[in-house]
């Protein structure tokens, strides 16, 4: 952890070498995800309710997913860049250092500009928390924290999964964006609004619904079971197959010429 902070400071200093670029990108990020917010807002302005969820309730859901994904993007960006790392031999270097590879890839890049997105998510959640009509007792606060943590975990695992594929092929990784960007876009609304199949997909394949739809029901008092509240933690089990896949990938790592 101490070492991670060292990396953190190096990246921060690197980012500060290009100050104006940094702030422009932060602003860009903020505006970009703001359009997502606007689309939810316009839609809800017209229909008031989607599948029984009100505007504030949907915003709660939206901000949880956005918070999780923006933190994951900020810290797990190294995995997004992983195909290039393999291409330019950076991963060779990582393997010659006496530390865990996942940790080093994780620390190799931090995308501070995602703070723009993060800030926006924070604003939205600050609006949604008082207006959603949820009674904020300790139980519910804990559930909300679990939800954000879970979303962060699932998106992080998705990034690692994305990186794993590049051990075997450098091309055609675009399809992974269905899960990462798709998860972000779909996650704006509770997954149930898209129908049974999408909900099932995001429950059993990419367990994003476990930290969004189900605990939301518990928050809103529509489901009483404690089980719904701890589901976000179960979503972290998603890491298990991903990490096994990663180990398998490292063993089959081919490196590049020269």
């Amino acid at each position, binding site marked *: 952890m101490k070492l991670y902070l060292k990396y953190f400071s190096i990246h921060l200093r690197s980012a500060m070498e290009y100050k104006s670029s940094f702030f422009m990108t932060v602003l860009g990020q903020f505006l970009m995800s703001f359009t997502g917010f606007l689309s939810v807002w316009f839609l809800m302005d017209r229909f008031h309710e989607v599948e029984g969820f009100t505007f504030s309730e949907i915003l709660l859901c939206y901000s949880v997913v956005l918070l999780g994904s923006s933190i994951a993007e900020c810290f797990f960006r190294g995995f997004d860049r992983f195909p290039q790392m393999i291409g330019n031999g950076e991963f060779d270097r990582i393997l010659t250092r006496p530390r*865990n590879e996942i940790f080093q890839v994780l620390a190799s890049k931090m995308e501070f500009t995602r703070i723009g997105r993060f800030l926006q998510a924070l604003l939205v959640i600050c609006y949604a928390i008082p207006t959603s009509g949820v009674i904020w007792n300790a139980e519910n606060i804990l559930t909300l924290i679990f939800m954000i943590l879970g979303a962060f975990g699932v998106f992080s695992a998705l990034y690692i999964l994305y990186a794993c594929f590049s051990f075997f092929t450098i091309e055609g990784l675009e399809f992974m964006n269905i899960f990462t960007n798709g998860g972000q876009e779909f996650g704006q609304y509770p997954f149930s609004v898209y129908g049974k199949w999408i909900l099932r997909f995001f429950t059993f394949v990419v367990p994003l619904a476990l930290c969004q739809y189900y605990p939301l029901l518990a928050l809103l008092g529509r489901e009483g079971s404690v089980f719904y509240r701890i589901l976000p933690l179960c979503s972290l089990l998603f890491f298990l197959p991903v990490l096994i896949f990663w180990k398998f990938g490292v063993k089959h790592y081919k490196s590049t010429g020269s």
Partner: protein
Amino acid sequence: MIAVKHVRKTFQVARRDAGFRAAVKTLLHKQYDTVEALKDISFTIDDGEMVGYIGPNGAGKSSTIKILSGILTPDSGECLVNEKTPWKERISHVAQIGVVFGQRSQLWWDVPVIDSFELIRDIYKTPEAVYRKNLDELTQMLQLSQILKTPTRQLSLGQRMRCEIAASLLHDPKVLFLDEPTIGLDAVSKIAVREFIKELNRKKGTTVILTTHDMQDIEALTSRILLIGKGQILLDGSLSQLKETYSDQKQLTVAYSGSAPALCPGMTVSSAQPGQLVLSVDPKVMSISKAISYLSEHAEITDLSVSGASTEEIVVQLYKEFRI
């Protein structure tokens, strides 16, 4: 001590004909060729040795280095570096080695070199005292004091390479792998790097394994050569031994005025400029003294020198002989 036994490594290489149609075809059905990068490699290197690992492009040099440094897992075979198998005990293994890739940087691009060094110290968990001592030594030997505070991106290639080498030695490695350390460097930097490596080996007894295409590196640094070609070790011996067996040819550098001398059997031109000729003379056909007297009869010689074949030529000859 490095012991490599029957190491084999193959790669799957995607194959495709040129053209759009072929591209579409590959989309549906990919064809792979299996390339044997390393067929059956065995050798041992003792502590404190300096070994030059040579071979043409694509012979398997880098693959071997990558296996020894824990980056690649071979298909079969055994390999022990300081009693550890690199790909099985990667973390404890790499803590004891240093690797310099001539074409790739290990320093962080946008921060001063010293920041990179400190991060490397933390990655390797080097004790502060050891780090201080090594840093002082390396700074002095590689003349880094002026450039430690410069961001890496603003360094010249020569400066950067000196920093790279320093960076891979901060943790006192027992073995140092150098993959083309002098590539692209100017003469002064090259000599500085070579001198330093020699010094390091002498002072600390660090085992050095060097791959290079620059034969002067080999000549200046290593006494032992491993020649690899087509994935096999073709030759393992000392440089002087090699020179004896593979080259009895002598080189004559002749400066002349007037017209160029005509050649006789046993002489071949290595290079020619107006007023100067470099000839290879095969002593089996014509003795050196005869060659000299022949030349002085046929041309107005102003200067003449005799030398043994250069390492470069020996290597070319070796490559030819082994058809690699």
